[in-house]
């Protein structure tokens, strides 16, 4: 395979070219086969040490990364904020520098502050894979979403993708928007004006507040989670009202194109942003996204590990 990857970090899809994104997706296709074998393990990261450094709680993403690392035969350390020295007053950079001194190779890092991974990446020789930084970026989620779209639809260019819900606080939305635009999709965002800022129009995203109109012609509908933990002020009156006007119900699905697929990054608030009937229904590819996440994360870890200098 021709080497097209030169980065020790994956911080944001904004930084990547379309070619680099496609290269990750192609690499992930190869790794997907690994998990379908009898022996689900390859020695690609044998002898490398990966630190899963989660300063913000996570189960799904951390487990997905950890399994990806295991299947690549890496050595793994898990550090979580509750057990880390950050609580003892050490700065984030000092904590990273101490781990770096233990000769680790990669950090998979989640942090509540946007740009925290960018800051750390500038100050360490280790590779940084962003597993989510505030509302900024969650590149592996967007890559697995795009992987799933490509698998289901055969392409990304020219597709109409509608992202529904809390765009304002969503790193998933921001990463999907950059990635999809770079690969030539048409992106619409929809939700109440409190959660869907018009500023996204400046980069070529269609912004609307009318759900039915936004999903009517869509090939892909990506439904975002209502993140109660980030909604620290009044953005909408109640879950019930949100569900009534912006929830993806069977009635909404009935107005969509017959071959449109429905995605959700999880975890789902059932019957708030998406009805159980839809989430578990035939259009839903939600669990396939989870499966693909593993392949995408294996690909990303493999590529960045190859660029970390000793």
């Amino acid at each position: 395979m021709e080497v097209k990857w030169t980065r020790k970090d994956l911080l944001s899809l904004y930084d990547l070219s379309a070619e680099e994104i496609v290269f990750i997706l192609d690499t992930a296709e190869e790794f997907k086969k690994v998990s379908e074998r009898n022996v689900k393990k390859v020695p690609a990261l044998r002898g490398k040490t990966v630190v899963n450094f989660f300063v913000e709680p996570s189960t799904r993403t951390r487990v997905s990364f950890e399994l990806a690392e295991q299947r690549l035969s890496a050595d793994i350390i898990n550090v979580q904020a509750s057990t880390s020295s950050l609580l003892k007053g050490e700065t984030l950079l000092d904590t990273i520098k101490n781990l770096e001194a233990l000769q680790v190779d990669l950090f998979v890092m989640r942090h509540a502050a946007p740009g925290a991974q960018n800051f750390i990446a500038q100050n360490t020789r280790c590779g940084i894979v962003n597993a989510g930084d505030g509302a900024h970026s969650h590149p592996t989620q967007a890559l697995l979403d795009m992987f799933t779209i490509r698998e289901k639809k055969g392409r990304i260019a020219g597709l109409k993708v509608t992202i529904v819900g809390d765009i304002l606080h969503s790193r998933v939305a921001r990463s999907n928007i950059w990635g999809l635009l770079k690969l030539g999709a048409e992106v619409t965002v929809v939700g109440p004006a409190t959660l869907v800022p018009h500023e996204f129009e400046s980069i070529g995203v269609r912004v609307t507040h009318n759900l039915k109109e936004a999903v009517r012609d869509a090939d892909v509908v990506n439904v975002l989670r209502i993140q109660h933990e980030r909604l620290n002020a009044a953005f909408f009156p109640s879950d019930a009202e949100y569900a009534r006007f912006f929830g993806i119900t069977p009635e909404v699905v009935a107005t969509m194109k017959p071959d449109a697929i429905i995605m959700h990054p999880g975890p789902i608030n059932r019957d708030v942003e998406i009805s159980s009937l839809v989430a578990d229904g035939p259009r839903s590819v939600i669990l396939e996204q989870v499966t693909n996440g593993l392949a995408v994360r294996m690909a990303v870890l493999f590529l960045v590990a190859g660029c970390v200098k000793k």
Partner: protein
Amino acid sequence: MIEGINNFILRNARVMDPYTGEDNVRDIGVMDGMLVDPECVLNPLTVDLENLVAAPGFIDMHVHLRQPGNTAAETIATGTMAAAAGGFTGIVPMPNTNPACDSASTIEYLRRHTAVDGVVRVYPCGCLTKGFAGEEMAPIGNLKTAGVMALSDDGRCVQNHDLMRHILEYAKSFELPVLDHCEDNSLKGSGVVHEGQLSMLLGMNGIPSLAEELMVARDVMLARLVGWKIHIQHVSAKESVELIRRARAAGIMVTAEATPHHIALTDEFIRKYDTNYKMNPPLRTEEDRQEVIRALADGTITVIATDHAPHTATSKMVEFDVAPFGIVGLETALPICLTELYHAGHLGLMQLISKFTVGPTDILGIGNHSLTAGNPADITIFDPEAEYVIDKNRFYTKSRNTPFHGMRVKGMVRGTMVCGRLVYDQLAERRVE
């Protein structure tokens, strides 16, 4: 370096004095700390200032000295030396120290230490409220007696409009100007950068211009109601500028300052996640920056002040959300403003000098501080044409938190004289024996 008190003849200086309108090449005599006729100076040291500008001493009315409370970031000694190196002969340190300058005893502490460690003149400023907590009025009368020249809760903004009204009325009785950091807390929220296209795309918490504009509008209305002076600190948003412009046209006693960083930089830089671009108010858009410059040119904004805010490297080498707001500014203000305002063609040299002299002295009531015989010899000497690259490692301030490191500028401070003492001296090769 010329130390101690000497008598001077400063030869061939281009004297630019906005108090008198003088723009003239002549000699300046300094004897016993006062400006005198050069003919009368006994035993002078002679310095040739050919091609250099000599202006009345610059005043920076917005500085944080961090003493008492955070001497790891700055002290009275290092902060006033940085002021001297920036061409400032006087500064107004903000009262948000620890303990705060909300009592006569803290002001006395400040005066006692500046008398010993201070390199330039320090004009004390007292709090508006106790502990700058925005709840109870500070002892404004006592503060005045202790020597404050102005009042401010800088870093915070009194949210209670009724309290702010009473503070303004009470300050009026003691003839103290009120300097306000205009910011509505609920609109600011947990914001760290300007709310706009970039903050939305980068997923960073924004501070909307409205957070400033709303309090500027409030202050303008209070100044009208009470009939007393409010000075709007570090104006950053174009909407605020327009409110101030209209208020001044209506004769309301409102003045305003702009900082060099709001003159020179925009929120485009936040992409770097470099905390040296984190300040409050935040860097805003190019449109805002242009409007601030227009307001300096048309006289709406009469003061340039630095909001010199030293922070230790440790406190700034953190995640952007966690870092404290603020940058150092004393030693970069004049070169940045000469580059961005004078050489860029927005302001004449005399007009620029007035923002550092007449502007602040009018508000603070320091009065005429011109380069005329009989006045104290407070002089700022600079070369408007000299080019250099800013190097933070050469700063006198204890902190290094600047976004201007490595920037090429045109304009250099060459000497600062306070009461006849050459406290900053880059004139060695110009000594005439």
